């Protein structure tokens, strides 16, 4: 009886343990993955209640090296309502080394140093995001000694982390879109002030419009690129194009999706988009979208203050790079229009002219060249035949033979049935041709200098032997 009970307990214990291990080591499918292998199993025996006994009421502090006092109080509700709290993560899963008591020594220069040190803990569960962050402008700034550079907790907070991604769709939650500019504003407030007045920002902040970009749509999320580099500048039109060439979004607002095409067709766009990316570090001063439309303060084109549909406004933009530009100058830029008989007609008609003129001239030349070439080939062949094969069947080319027929004839010339044997007269005629010409001309000139040479040639012509 006792042995049997022991066996049952052992087996069930092993079962429970194995489930635990399977859960612990199974590959992750959610945004916050399971703990990594090297992560020690947290001391789950220490419940949040244990921590909150001390840290759950105002009071405990810690003296930092610079003399500041670090508040060690945590509002228990903050963590409980955070995404981590709701999922049941314990304090010691982030504060991994404080499970024992007394706490191990902790030295920090100042409050910022505390955050930077404790921030390391995020990577144990969110390693992929952490990897992305390493390439970001913030991580570089931090490496270069700028301790103000944003770390995980600056955006996500430490204890009140919110859910941002819908676990089903893996897409940003609608409410999270609204939080993003406010999050960035914590450090980039001056830019935020511009953004919230812009056509995009006002639509997001005012109306919660999901179509307009928030900060991350242009700058990325974790691997936020340095937007002051030449490379970012050269690639920036593609950022705008993501939405502005998408008819699904643009049709709602009656905005043209030809903006990228028309930009690329222009001198500025050609330079930026098609050639310079090959040398990504190239310093190129041709304007990108934001040089004319504004960076964070983009306004609708019909905005009376800054909209580019207003000639005065676009002239101001032109003059940034073309200081001497006058009022005629802005229309040198086609304003993203494709020339038509009503819009930019001069450009349209010149283009149309060349569309017909080039094929006409070049086609005419091609026809004449082909005629000359095939005729020369025919004559040459005839001349060579006249000295050679005499016994072959006579089949002279027809007078009216067109270019196509001549070509066919040339291709099939090897077949004996098609071979040509000119008469002796023809050969003689050909050979004497030049002498006759010279004689003719000399004679005609001696007779009368005013006589039209051409008419003489015509009269002198030998009847065709063919």
């Amino acid at each position, binding site marked *: 009886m006792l042995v049997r009970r022991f066996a049952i307990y052992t087996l069930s214990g092993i079962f429970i343990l194995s489930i635990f291990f399977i859960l612990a080591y199974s590959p992750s499918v959610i945004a916050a993955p399971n703990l990594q292998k090297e992560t020690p199993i947290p001391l789950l025996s220490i419940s949040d209640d244990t921590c909150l006994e*001390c840290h759950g009421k105002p*009071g*405990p*502090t810690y003296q930092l090296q610079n003399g500041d*006092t*670090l508040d*060690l109080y945590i509002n228990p509700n903050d963590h409980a309502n955070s995404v981590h709290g709701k999922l049941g993560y314990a304090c010691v899963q982030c504060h991994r080394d404080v499970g024992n008591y007394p706490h191990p020594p902790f030295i920090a220069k100042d409050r910022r140093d505390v955050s930077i040190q404790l921030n390391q803990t995020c990577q144990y569960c969110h390693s992929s995001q952490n990897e992305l962050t390493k390439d970001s402008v913030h991580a570089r700034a931090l490496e270069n000694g700028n301790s103000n550079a944003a770390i995980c907790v600056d955006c996500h907070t430490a204890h009140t982390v919110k859910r941002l991604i819908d676990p089903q769709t893996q897409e940003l939650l609608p409410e999270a879109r609204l939080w993003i500019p406010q999050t960035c504003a*914590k*450090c*980039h*407030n001056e*830019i935020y002030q511009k953004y919230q007045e812009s056509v995009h920002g006002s639509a997001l902040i005012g109306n919660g419009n999901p179509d307009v970009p928030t900060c991350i749509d242009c700058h990325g999320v974790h691997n936020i690129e340095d937007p002051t580099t030449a490379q970012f500048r050269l690639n920036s039109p593609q950022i705008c194009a993501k939405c502005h060439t998408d008819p699904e979004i643009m049709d709602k607002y009656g905005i043209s999706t030809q903006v990228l095409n028309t930009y690329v067709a222009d001198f500025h766009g050609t330079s930026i988009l098609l*050639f310079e990316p*090959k*040398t990504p570090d*190239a310093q*190129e*001063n041709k304007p990108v979208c934001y*040089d004319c439309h504004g960076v964070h303060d983009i306004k609708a084109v019909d905005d009376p203050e800054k909209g580019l549909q207003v000639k005065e406004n676009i002239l101001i933009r032109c003059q940034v*790079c*073309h*200081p*001497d*530009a*006058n009022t*005629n*100058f802005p*229309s*040198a830029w086609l304003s993203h229009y494709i020339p038509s008989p009503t819009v*930019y007609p*001069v*450009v349209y008609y*010149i283009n149309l002219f*060349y569309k017909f003129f*080039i094929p006409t*001239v*070049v086609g005419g030349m*091609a026809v004449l*060249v082909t005629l*000359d*070439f095939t*005729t020369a080939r025919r004559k*040459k062949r005839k001349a060579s035949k006249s*000295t050679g094969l005499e016994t072959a069947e006579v089949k002279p080319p027809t*007078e*009216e033979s067109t270019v196509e027929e001549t070509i066919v004839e040339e291709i099939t010339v090897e077949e004996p049935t098609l071979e040509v044997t000119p008469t002796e007269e023809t050969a003689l005629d050909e050979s004497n*041709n030049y*002498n006759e*010409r010279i004689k*003719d*001309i*000399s004679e005609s*000139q*001696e007779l009368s200098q005013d006589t*039209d*040479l*051409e008419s003489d*040639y015509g009269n002198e*012509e030998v009847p065709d032997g*063919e």
Partner: protein
Amino acid sequence: MENNIQIQTEVEDKDLQRKEFVRFDLHQRIEHIVLLAAFTILAVTGLPQKFPTSPISQSIIRGFSGIETARSIHHIFAVILLVVSIYHVIDVLYRIVVLRVDWSMIPVVEDFKHFFHDLGYYFGVHKHKAYYPRYNYVEKVEYLAVVWGTIIMAITGFIMWNPIAVTKYLPGQIIPASKTAHGGEAILAVLSIIIWHFYHVHLRQFNKSMFIGKISRIEMEEEHPAELAQIESMYVSLPEEKVIRQRQKIFFPIAIFITLIFGLGLIWFVTLEDTAITTIPKGETANIYVPITPTPKPSATPTTTQAPGEQVAEESWDGKYQAMFDNRCGTCHGFTSVGGLSLATYRSALQGGKSGPAIVPGDPDASVLVQIQSTGKHPGQLTIDELNQVIQWILAGAPEN
């Protein structure tokens, strides 16, 4: 053809056959070489800009190490083309004014007759081609196309080179219109050269006269029989040396003047305006790092509860030491009462823990708190300053408030 020549040489005087004629003098050959080079480089640097999406264009531009270099080269050879054009104008004027040669490049009615004659020849109506003079309609078309094309390219090029100056007087639309025409004309020119020029002087027979300057009598018979006849009938003759000298005396000052005018025009063309700034326009002008001042956290030190109107001495449990002990010792000697000691309240502090009363008013030495803190090894160690304050407070009778 070879047969013809073979038979012909037997018949004709051999000396006559070896005879050569000067077709192009040194000036013309230099003009042609420079034009050839400039045209080619202009096409190679220009057409990729007309067809920017093509991978060929992009690799060409890469070959020039970027669009800016390619544009600079395009500009340099545009200037070279204009220089050779000016040179050509002076050269032509010299021929007309001093040498008084025929205006052999001007199209005449005869050219149309020759054209229709040749059409007849192609379709077998005539036995031979028209007897061409010095320049036939093929050459005239090409020459005039080059002249016309250069004028169009120079004008549209000027407009694109100096858009600010141009739009002072003309509507802005003229700039993209010029760009369209410049590109269209370029395609036309390149295709014409490939089809028309390459066929007539390279493919049909390789005509070296533009490089060596001379043409054989056989080629003359073949290509320019009318001119040959004119020459051989002594119909063409240059003026006497003396006459040429006299005319040169008048011509050269005029030529210098014209060159000067054109030269200044060219400098004006190139240096008329500074179209744009050379620096990169500044993107975002706002300061990057402007943090919102964070709302201050509630004070870490809780304020003690006190009855309204009650005066609390600073050096008292309520005024100072409850908070100090809470902060510094509360982690263990608060709720958790490690070692039975809780410093949460005045009462519990006086009561002490396992080791005895933590605080004995008036007697720091008897106070276990002072005893243990004095060792300097307690986990929640007070600073010396703090400990001294505590000792002073105990000496003063450890007032509660």
